[in-house]
């Protein structure tokens, strides 16, 4: 089951109702069973891997807590979880295995590994029971595509066994409606046009670059929509998940972009890869450049066994190192210049990155990059404008949503009428734009 499955609203309603009605001691069981039903719906075999990863990491975390060899156990956990991830993601490339990545593996493997590392660094205690550990790894709102939560953020909320307050319920419903809008009205409306443009044998400059711009809007709406659906679902249980996006296209530099885009995965990489590479004390500029480069290449490679993902990582690594070298001057910090740097970053690293990310064929990618956006026939020019117009038109509500989110506190009681209008309007838009589709969330493939 996914958030856009027709049965999801009923499922969510049922689990929330059971969770509220159950005695506090049983709420964990409700969430655990609900999560297992959600993830195993239609494919119960998928549960085997997530339970195996969660259970083995719990055993390792318990052993670390009991005083066993910390380094060896951490190495075991890292080798096991990243090995499994690599086997499914890169097995096709190196071992000729069939291309298949179990749904959500990229996310729950990181979260489960993060739990072991948090225990090893004594940020948290190991969970007392296997059920508690599995509840943390399997918590269904964020199981399939994040946000990747830190143990110290999520586990205590689960252990509290509380229920949602009224303001949380209201905010949860707004987030659910907003997430559904982003996915259904924006991402799914763009999907067939982007897909078709990238399937053209010879797309011409305007169409290819317009499709890349449209993909930039689509991938943001898709992943941000998923995250908001996850956050909204979790809030109905009284659990706050991390905000995964913070207006990433407003970023003036590449490092700032990564502090706004997919923030929880970035945080994982920062805490568990970048920080060890930087070491303690004040690292040299060369060491910082090396660490940032490795971290962003790893971010690219995390998406899968495609040259385009490695090139995407390389682009962001190069740009980040460039910004690092300019840091002593930091012209983007001046308020008057900041919007221009943000626009520049969007039109260079953002747009180019979207093109690289979406085009898996290196030969075609080179051909796209060799074509200026203004080259092509009159028809291609007009078609490119049409795709630009579609993407820009659908980006407007995302931009407005960001403005509202910046200014509007969801917990404010006076906001209730506005919340009702907003939810009604968003659901009406979803009703209008919804079309049955085989398209899952984009990030399910990573």
């Amino acid at each position, binding site marked *: 089951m996914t958030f856009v499955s027709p049965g999801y609203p009923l499922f969510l309603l049922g689990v929330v109702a059971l969770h509220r009605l159950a005695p506090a001691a049983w709420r964990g069981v409700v969430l655990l069973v609900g999560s297992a039903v959600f993830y195993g719906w239609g494919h119960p075999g998928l549960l085997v891997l997530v339970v195996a990863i969660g259970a083995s990491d719990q055993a390792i975390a318990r052993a670390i807590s009991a005083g066993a060899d910390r380094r060896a156990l951490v190495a075991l956990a890292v080798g096991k979880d990243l090995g499994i991830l690599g086997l499914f993601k890169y097995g096709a490339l190196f071992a000729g295995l069939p291309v298949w990545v179990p749904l959500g593996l990229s996310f729950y493997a990181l979260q489960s590994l993060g739990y072991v590392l948090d225990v090893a660094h004594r940020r948290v205690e190991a969970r007392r029971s296997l059920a508690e550990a599995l509840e943390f790894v399997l918590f269904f709102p964020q199981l399939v595509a994040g946000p990747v939560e830190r143990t110290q953020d999520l586990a205590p909320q689960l252990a509290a066994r509380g229920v949602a307050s009224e303001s949380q319920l209201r905010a949860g419903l707004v987030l659910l409606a907003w997430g559904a809008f982003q996915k259904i009205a924006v991402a*799914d*409306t763009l*999907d*067939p*046009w982007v*897909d*078709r*443009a*990238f*399937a*053209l*044998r*010879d797309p*011409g400059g305007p*169409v290819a670059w317009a499709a890349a711009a449209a993909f930039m809007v689509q991938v943001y709406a898709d992943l941000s929509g998923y995250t908001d659906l996850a956050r909204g679902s979790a809030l109905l249980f009284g659990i706050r998940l991390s905000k995964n996006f913070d207006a990433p296209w407003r970023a003036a530099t590449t490092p700032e972009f990564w502090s706004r885009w997919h923030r929880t995965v970035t945080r994982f990489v920062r805490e568990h890869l970048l920080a060890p590479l930087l070491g303690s004390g004040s690292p040299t500029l060369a060491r910082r450049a090396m660490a940032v480069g490795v971290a962003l290449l790893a971010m690219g490679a995390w998406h899968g066994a495609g040259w385009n993902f490695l090139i995407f990582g390389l682009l962001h690594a190069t740009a980040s190192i460039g910004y690092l070298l300019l840091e002593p001057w930091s012209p983007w910090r001046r308020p008057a210049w900041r919007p221009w740097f943000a626009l520049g970053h969007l039109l260079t690293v953002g747009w180019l990155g979207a093109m690289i990310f979406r085009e898996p064929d290196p030969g075609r990618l080179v051909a796209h990059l060799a074509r200026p956006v203004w080259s092509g*026939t009159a*028809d*291609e020019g*007009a*078609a490119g*404008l*049409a*795709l*630009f*117009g*579609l993407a*820009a*038109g*659908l980006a407007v509500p995302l931009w407005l949503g960001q403005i509202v989110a910046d200014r509007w506190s969801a917990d404010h009681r006076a906001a*209730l*009428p*506005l919340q*009702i*209008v907003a939810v*009604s*309007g968003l659901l*009406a838009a979803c*009703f*209008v*734009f919804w*079309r*049955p*589709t*085989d*398209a*899952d969330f984009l990030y399910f493939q990573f």
Partner: protein
Amino acid sequence: MSRLATLLAPLPAVLLLGAGLWRAPTATDAREDQNAGLVLGGVLHADGVAAALDAVLAQRPRVLVIGNSNANSDVDPVTLARGLAVRRDDVAVLSIPNASAVHFVAILRRLQGRGWRPDLVLVVSRLQLVLVDTPISEGARRSLEALLGPDDGDLRPVGGRWIRELVARREALRDRLGAGLRSWLPRAFGTLRPEAVLRRALSDERIDPDRLGRPAARALPSPERSRAGELARTARALGVDLVVARPPPSPLAGPEDGDVVPAGFPERTRAVLEAEGARWADLSALRMQPHHYRNADHLDDEGARRLTGALLALLRPPRGQRLDALGAVRFVDGVLRRDTGTVTWAGPPPALPEVTNVRFTGDLGVLEVDLAAPDDAWTQQATRLSVRCSPVRAVMDGALLPGAGLPCTALRPGSSCHRASGVHVRAPDTREHRWSVALDPERSCDGARWLYPGDRAELRWTAELPGARLEIEVVARGAVRVDAALAGGSGGVAVPGRTLVLPTSAGPQVLSLHSDGYALVTRAELVLP
């Protein structure tokens, strides 16, 4: 009280939203509503669709074509009648706007108890409409109500009218919003028909299907749960030969508008139909050009002749083994296939005269040259699928440009067409180029092959059974002599308009053809005894 007021305060805005959605019908919706239950075969009948249907059936037509508006636009009754060797009046087109499977079943049920049955019922419909189990619009529901008799309660749609209307309204609104979002920017830059331009730029022929991701599909019942089986059972109970034909996708339709169904549904539909004795004709592989359409969804007369011609390959299949060398159209397991075999030629095509004058306006030009070769207009008349396939090509800077297969008014950049006035070209740019003309070395013309003056061609095949005879047909403009000879066997002269028959034996065969003019070999068929 204040709590209640807080909850009720946004009600006007919510109601306004609902009203906006409700008041979103298009002009098309309004017209369909107005004519609902009154249109049959594209004609308005004041006394209603049921009375009109009964009046047509009282004439006892031998062939019924039923479906939605595509049945009216996509089938040429004259071509169909000629191909099936029946009178034109024996073919009745019973199309109903937005009709779907429930309508098809209801029409078949009206044949019951008449003491007569047609020879063939041809359903022409998108697969989506064969599978969907309720009327797809309010107008279609009212048409269905008009057709239903007292025993047809099982076909009556369930659910409140306002829900169905709301769903129809939302689809209309979504389409309008989508078109508006795609059009505003190109319009601002002066593009006149941005939707048409976009669809042309992203048309099927420019797409690599292997690169296409997940298409959007309607929420459809599976073929096994749909009314496809009931449709076939009803026809079988009546003793009627039923063929369900799926038209090819329109190159003008956007990615959201095609007949997209989940993977495997066409094959499963065929299995369901064949289990009940009906036949399935999937014409998805038939290549249609934008100029074959009068609008995004409906074929024009030329397109209808082309589709009907292809359909006849199933309705009246070739009487024997077909030679692959001609690139024939045929159905395999209910799906249209195009065979592209090989044929060898003794030498290159003969040279054509020099171009006497070149006139260009922008990127559009005319190469004036005195040619004996047939032009596109002639091939349209001469070929069964009405294709524009003159063998003459423009040559730009030494490179052969492809034939457009389009009217000269709709040329794409880098293609050519051939009219009486000369060879028309659309250059890929407005730079200076060297121009000449040449004959197409491939010599192909959809399902036929060209023979040029002095050409010698060899067709090779293996006859599977002894005692078959080879039938050869050619068409040509004017008096042309085509000599045909089987290696080690018989020979003769193929005269345009007549069938040359040569006896063959089993095993490998070689047919040599020699022509003294421009001739199109339209048929080379082995007919079993």
